């Protein structure tokens, strides 16, 4: 193998699988597409193994536009886990909802490709194109169930606001290009170190942050989140919540930490405010939700706020704990949405709080599983959520952001209320009606088992993974 292509290896695996699935989609059988899911899953798992195998290697390709470093590899692992869990959960779900078509798997793979590329991109224009590759695929996936108005509306809302964010993003790139004469991250970094604090550069960065804010759904750019999370197919919701968020944070961290290190005082103040607003708005509004998907949507906004704390805290510990939390959040959220997606009431998904009344009596295992994921979202030991929050808030305290940590802890306490409410419904309410679901398929059970393994592995033995996460951000902080 050509050594120059090694940095591209994870990309090539995912992209190659996407092309393979396109070809296989044309071959019979025409009415069953489950085997494409298996092929796609194999590709994603392969990419995961390749990323783990490349750990520790460094390299660049195509004039430094793509980099291979531990940071990119760590996020590859997060993204591939997210994609694998989503694919495992999808096949059966699609069949039940009459949406089993080959394009689904192709688009999941192409958006995964965009995400992996975002983690490895070292040039603003490549980040932009990767972001678009990811987003365009997700817009379509959000509206994948044809004939459902909610899904079509979700798709359109996601698309219009996403394209709006793209406009800000590209104008930001234009201004940064105007200030530095380049879009390559290392050349911009050199320019910021050499030059004074050019206002053009700062406005450019501000516009970039607006674009990123939409993608990671931080307040005040979160307004698309509830409708899209609610309307999109639940498997796609899980992917938007985990994979696209990880990719957004990947590019955000790389740009902020390695390129705009000089302007750190400026963006730290801004992100402090955004972090507080994001977690507070997310948690407070989540209390009022009676739809579980909507509640988890606002909860995901709140979690973005927690992760921004790590960005504000900075340093190896702060940024490392963001990566750690992204992994934790991927397992937890994919798991929680996975349980929702397995439950049905009548012919529709069980998404209302009332549907969960007395669930423990009917589906003891699923109820317990969901309860564990919710406990991880609260941050109860010994689940991974606790370790993740502990590191994030600890990093804030260590960097002197005591108030930020205090606000975050208060927020977590508020959040416990609405998560525990679901648990109370499941265990303490009597059964109403007859919400029965089909028996979870093998793939679905496997996905939930992997997610459960993830939250306990990371909850009980967090230190080794945190060390890896800190090693991963080291290349950015040099």
């Amino acid at each position, binding site marked *: 193998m050509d050594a120059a292509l090694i940095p591209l290896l994870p990309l090539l695996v995912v992209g190659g699988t996407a092309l393979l699935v396109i070809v296989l989609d044309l071959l019979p059988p025409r009415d069953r597409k489950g085997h494409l899911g298996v092929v796609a899953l194999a590709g994603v798992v392969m990419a995961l193994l390749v990323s783990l195998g490349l750990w520790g290697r460094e390299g660049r390709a195509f004039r430094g536009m793509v980099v291979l470093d531990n940071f990119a590899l760590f996020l590859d692992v997060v993204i591939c886990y997210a994609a694998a869990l989503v694919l495992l959960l999808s096949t059966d779900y699609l069949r039940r909802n009459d949406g089993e078509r080959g394009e689904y798997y192709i688009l999941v793979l192409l958006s995964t490709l965009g995400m992996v590329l975002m983690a490895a991109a070292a040039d603003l*224009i490549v980040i*932009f*194109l990767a972001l*678009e590759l990811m987003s*365009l695929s997700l*817009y*379509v996936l959000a*509206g994948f169930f*044809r*004939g*459902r*108005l*909610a899904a*079509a*509306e979700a*798709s*359109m*809302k996601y*698309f*219009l606001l996403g*394209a*709006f964010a*793209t*406009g*800000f993003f*590209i*104008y930001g*790139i*234009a*201004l940064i*290009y*105007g200030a530095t*004469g*380049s*879009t390559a991250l290392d050349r911009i970094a050199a320019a910021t170190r050499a030059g004074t604090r050019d206002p053009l550069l700062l406005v450019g960065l501000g516009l970039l942050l607006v674009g990123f804010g939409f993608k990671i759904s931080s307040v005040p750019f979160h*307004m698309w989140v*509830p*409708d899209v999370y609610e*309307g999109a197919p639940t498997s796609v919701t899980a992917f938007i919540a985990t994979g696209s968020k990880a990719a957004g944070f990947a590019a955000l961290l790389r740009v902020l930490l390695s390129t705009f290190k000089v302007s750190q005082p400026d963006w730290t103040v801004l992100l402090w405010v955004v972090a507080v607003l994001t977690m507070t708005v997310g948690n407070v*509004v989540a209390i*009022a939700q009676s739809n579980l998907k909507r509640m988890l949507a606002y909860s995901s906004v709140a979690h973005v706020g927690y992760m921004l704390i790590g960005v504000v805290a900075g340093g190896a510990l702060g940024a490392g704990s963001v990566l750690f939390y992204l992994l934790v959040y991927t397992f937890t959220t994919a798991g929680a949405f996975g349980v929702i997606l397995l439950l049905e009431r009548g012919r529709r998904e069980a998404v209302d709080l009332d549907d969960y009344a007395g669930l423990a009596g009917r589906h003891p295992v699923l109820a317990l599983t969901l309860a564990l994921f919710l406990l991880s979202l609260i941050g109860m030991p010994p689940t991974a959520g606790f370790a993740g929050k502990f590191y994030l808030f600890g990093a804030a305290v260590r960097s002197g952001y005591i108030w930020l940590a205090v606000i975050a802890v208060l927020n977590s306490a508020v959040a416990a209320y609405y998560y525990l409410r679901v648990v109370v419904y499941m265990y303490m309410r009597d059964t109403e009606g007859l919400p029965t679901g089909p028996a979870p398929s093998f793939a679905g059970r496997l996905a939930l088992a992997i997610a459960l393994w993830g939250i306990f592995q990371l909850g009980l033995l967090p230190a080794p993974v945190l060390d890896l996460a800190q090693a991963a951000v080291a290349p950015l902080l040099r």
Partner: protein
Amino acid sequence: MVPESYYTALSAILFTIGVVGVLVRRNPLVIFMSIELMLNAANLALVAFGHRFGAADAQVLAFFVMTVAAAEVAVGLAIIVTIFRLRRRLSVDELSIMRW
């Protein structure tokens, strides 16, 4: 010779009109066209900066933006047509109840 700052100022004006258009209008197609205006303004700024540096890089970047715009238009109009098949009226506010 026209100073490049004139071009960038014009691009800032066009960008702002695009942003206001997205925020003010209700018809998704008009919103989408306003977004095109924003992308176009960004391209103009890019090319003006490139001209100042005497570099053709900016044109390549602008070309990528155009490609992305084309891809977005294809997907976006497909989404809008899909929604129209399900519903005969088209306005962002009516799309869904903007609940908290």
